[in-house]
């Protein structure tokens, strides 16, 4: 088993190396693209290291931009999850709440996240609050949908077992429905996190004074494709890192019934 895992590990590393080699051949060796349009991996790596400490041309270091983007994402995400979980649980577990809220919720959830941008800009401007609010809406909807369907799919037989042992409705929620829906919740958390991360970059491309999306936008207008690629790769890396963090949390909290 260990040996097999190691083999897959090697294959993954091999793919990354292959990618870098192809990139290097296309850019620096054969120069397939017009000069300056596709910087090679060496050039990008150099720009990356440089960008860690310089604030030109966009007024902030790479870490500064990462921090700015992450801050907005995490604020919107955490509030969205914190509000989404109880809302979804209430809807799934208490029929009157479901009857009351569902019609409005089903209507609102069909509105795509970006469609909220104009109205949110009117209400909250274009600063942190506005962007966090858009992320919040997306994350909230995603979280509610996932925990709702997770709880609705609780095995009836398992509910019966708890009921016959004498558990009340609230105890059944905490001892059966919630633990059995945890895998769904984590799927939802992962999906909304990557959606939030994609969303913030899109928002920053449109209107912003900092953040990774803004950095890419400035680099593009100044003809610095190397910095554009640095920005793209950083977005990818941070996204992968966030997903990994959630997967670690999943491993801690979800036992026995991981999907």
């Amino acid at each position, binding site marked *: 088993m260990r040996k097999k895992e190691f083999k897959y590990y090697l294959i993954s590393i091999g793919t990354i190396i292959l990618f870098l080699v192809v990139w290097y051949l296309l850019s620096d060796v054969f120069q397939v693209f017009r000069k300056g349009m596709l910087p090679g991996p060496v050039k990008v790596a150099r720009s990356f290291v440089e960008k860690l400490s310089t604030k030109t041309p966009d007024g902030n270091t790479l870490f500064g931009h990462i921090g700015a983007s992450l801050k907005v994402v995490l604020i919107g995400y955490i509030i969205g999850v914190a509000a989404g979980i109880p809302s979804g649980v209430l809807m799934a577990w208490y029929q009157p709440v479901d009857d009351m809220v569902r019609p409005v919720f089903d209507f609102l959830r069909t509105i795509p996240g970006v469609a909220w941008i104009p109205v949110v800009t009117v209400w909250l401007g274009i600063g942190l609050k506005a962007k966090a609010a858009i992320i919040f809406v997306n994350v909230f909807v995603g979280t509610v949908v996932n925990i709702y369907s997770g709880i609705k799919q609780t*095995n009836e*037989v*398992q509910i*019966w*077992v*708890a*009921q*016959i*042992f*004498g*558990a*009340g409705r609230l*105890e059944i929620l905490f*001892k*059966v429905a919630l*633990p*059995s829906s*945890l895998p769904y919740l984590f799927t939802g958390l992962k999906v909304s996190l990557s959606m939030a991360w994609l969303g913030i970059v899109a928002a920053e491309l449109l209107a912003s004074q900092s953040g990774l999306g803004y950095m890419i936008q400035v680099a593009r207008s100044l003809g610095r494709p190397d910095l554009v690629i640095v920005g793209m790769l950083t977005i990818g890396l941070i996204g992968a890192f966030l997903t990994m963090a959630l997967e670690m949390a999943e491993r801690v909290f*979800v*036992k*026995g*019934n991981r999907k």
Partner: protein
Amino acid sequence: MEQGKRKVQAKNLTKRFGELLVLDDISFDVMEGEFLCIVGPTGCGKTTFLNCLTKLYDITNGEILVDGAPINCKKNNISYILQESSAMEWLTVEQNIQFGLGIKRMPAGMKKERTEEMLELVGLTEYRNYYPKQLSISMLQRTVIARAFATYPELLLMDEPYGQLDLDLRFRLEDELVKLWQKTGTTVIFITHNVEEAVYLGERIMVLTNKPTKVKKIISCNLPRPRDVADERFVEMRNEVTELIRWW
């Protein structure tokens, strides 16, 4: 054969699912400490009866009483072993066995003691930290059985609990069930379609008809224990029940 008080009383029990009449005016009593087997063809409403008894289904007509009052799962100590596997996938074998004890707020010491006893009884001590996903069907069913026994229920409802087990284990668990029943004095209602199993276990055997289900006959079965499946009287009794079933 027990002349004690009535544990369970079913009075004119009728259950319809829409137009479909499943239970048709069934009345019978189960005595305290009795072991009652219910046999009947598959899909004849045996499970429906247990689900009505535990209030999982609403009753269309009639009533079911436990100790003279409508059942109350918070007061009555009841365990139900369902036909489908009902182990909680997110709990280990040990935690599954403790599930009912936790709901009944048993003190920690007793919880531990019962858990060890049950693990030993069903032979899962080595597998206590396994999750259901890692277990075979037979081990899963043993976990569920241990969970049901752990609370020492006053009323134990079993719906074809041994249907999925291999023969050897089934014989062992049948003997364990009898031992446990004798030791704890619990009242058992045991549903099966296996005539031999019913004759081996039951003090009375209630034979049901096909849908709409009525009680066909209730037979007393007071062979001495431990029962011997090759014994002449055992075979006679088995044939008598089988004969009743041949009617369908």
